């Protein structure tokens, strides 16, 4: 089902002062694959996403894009490659309205001037498909609810035409219907051969949409599981480290080998 490898991390490490946030991380994302990245609080998931997005530079290791090593110095670099990111803290500009936030950094222009009409029209269409009710696309995002802001941040990741979409806890603040829409969206992204990295603490969501589940524990890889051959208990024990032993690793390996 999964296509070529779009994004791969080889031995990526990241240190913050005295904190070794990431150690020797290996991760692969294929076209048309949804990789769920799970782990306890502080496991380093957001740090990993930021390293890929160009917000932090890894201290060691290589990031490969479509098989070639790339350096991602700045967020622009990641955007140009085709990596779109929804950050955990959303990174919206509170004083700007919804339309301005959606198109920030890649505004539609007409004769060099902002084309507000085209942007507004596109924004409405985009927000409608995520079935969110927003009072007006012309109010500052500061006046939106947490979930509405989150949907704006998700919609923003879809404005370009990304090849890989990274969603850092996209449904944390969402209602039932909006969560379903986001999960649908993730599946649509997969159908259209995009790679998706989805971070979530909600195991039901993870099991519902993920193809592969990568577990981080204390900044290290703690197993990569194929969704078809694993279950919630196994992943949870990998997250908590309760069954972090040779037996479980063998089983994971054996399942991978028997694909």
């Amino acid at each position, binding site marked *: 089902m999964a296509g070529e490898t779009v994004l791969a991390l080889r031995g990526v490490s990241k240190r913050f002062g005295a904190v070794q946030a990431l150690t020797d991380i290996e991760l692969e994302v294929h076209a048309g694959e949804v990789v769920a990245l799970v782990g306890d609080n502080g496991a380093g998931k957001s740090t990993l996403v930021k390293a890929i997005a160009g917000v932090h530079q890894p201290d060691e290791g290589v990031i490969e894009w479509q098989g070639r090593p790339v350096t991602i110095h700045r*967020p622009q670099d990641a955007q140009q490659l085709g990596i779109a990111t929804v950050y955990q803290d959303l990174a919206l500009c509170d004083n700007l309205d919804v339309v301005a936030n959606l198109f920030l950094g890649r505004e539609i222009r007409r004769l060099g001037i902002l084309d507000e009409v085209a942007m*507004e029209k596109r924004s*409405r269409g985009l927000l409608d498909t995520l*079935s969110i009710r927003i009072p*007006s696309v*012309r109010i500052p995002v500061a006046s939106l609810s947490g979930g509405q802001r989150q949907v704006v941040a998700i919609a923003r990741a879809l404005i370009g035409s990304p090849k890989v979409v990274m969603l850092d806890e996209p449904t944390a603040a969402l209602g*039932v219907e909006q969560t379903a829409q986001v999960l*649908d969206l993730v599946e649509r992204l997969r159908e259209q051969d995009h790679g998706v990295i989805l971070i979530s603490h909600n195991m039901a969501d993870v099991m519902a949409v993920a193809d592969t589940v990568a577990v981080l524990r204390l900044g290290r890889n703690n197993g990569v599981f194929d969704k078809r051959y694993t279950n919630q208990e196994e992943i949870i024990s990998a997250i908590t480290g309760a069954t972090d032993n040779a037996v479980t690793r063998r089983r994971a390996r054996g399942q991978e080998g028997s694909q």
Partner: protein
Amino acid sequence: MSDHIPGNTPGGEPGRDRVPLPEDSMPTGGVNAPVPVAPEATPAVDPRLIVRQEGIKGYLAEFRRRVSSGELGSLPVVVALIVIWVVFGSLNSSFLSAQNLSNLSQQIVGTGMIALGVVFVLLLGEIDLSVAYVSGLCAALFAVLNVNNGVNQWVALLVALASGAAVGVIHGLFFAKVGVPAFVVTLAGNLGWNGLMLQVLGATGTVNLSGKDIVSRLYTTIYGQQIAAYGAAVIGIALFVIASLVDAARRKAAGVPYRPMTDIVVRTVVLAIIAFLAAYTLNQYKGLPLALLIFLIFIVVLDFVLRRTTYGRKVFALGGNIEGARRAGIDVAWIRISVFSICSTMAAVGGLFLAAQIQSASQTSGGGNLLMNSIAAAVIGGTSLFGGRGKTWSALLGALVIGSIQSGMNIEGLSNAIQFMITGAVLLAAVVVDSLARRTQRAAGRA
């Protein structure tokens, strides 16, 4: 916000020339989607949204809602201006005379131009404490080059403006690249540029302008023909009407909310009343001062830059969330450096007008309360000290308030001591209004 909403718009149309995007296809009903939602089942507009009705009643309701949620905009400053004019006008009838108001319109230009640059820096949430002496330095450069060294006036003008831009780039580099807080960089600049200005002026300390040079003429030229002031008013109104109508038509065609006709008419009428009253007053005295016209053109052009270009959008984004702007791919350092450069260039422009006003560049240029007045003008005019909120028009409104206070006190024969205290109190009041508005906005979920 004040847009009229004609109804639900069909959503989900694909944009133009691009590859199909995920959002283009309908939801396919994933495993966790018990609620199939067709786009048309979800109104884009929240039924709870307070939408302004058309007409005067709508305006009043909207107005009340805005005040209660802290979106005051330029309301406080307009009220303050009216109060100031009424008070001074009743104390002495010569305050509201055509002559005094005409002079006022010329005198505010120097401070106003500097304030215009300060608006840009304030939008970033930063401050520039060097503008006054940068203005003095650039005026001194022009005067010394043109008068003492006989350099061509245009070349001298260009050098003065370019020096302003360069000063700003230096501030910006230290702030954006080295990471020194802006107020420290510009405080050091305030002292350093003052020193350089004294150095440039040399032993004599005062250089008188010839009175025939381009800078003097830009300030002193007044178009006496009746048609000039009225013509400018008509052109301004016409541009406003055309822009409003074109925008409304495009929005209507695209099916997004647009300003209703009554709204456009009301705004145009208000603008026309102000413009023609101003033109009439100016014509009662000598006519339309070129300096005022240039000031207005600067305001309109820079307003356009801020609200209608990607550059302006980036400036606002930085004022709202620096990290967010950086992650959106905005080159934060470049925007910061360029904004400081714009600010210092506008300080140079203001300095030239101030020099023309007193027909000389001297050791006192840029001194006194010019720094406070320029920053106060921007803040009093309604540009937030907290960044991300403001308009170029606040430079005009704020400069008018400060200029009116000064002019009124001069007429009353009050001392500088009292003037300073009153201007200080007005500045404090403006900052209090800004802070309170921000707090109310937070409470009303708008900040």
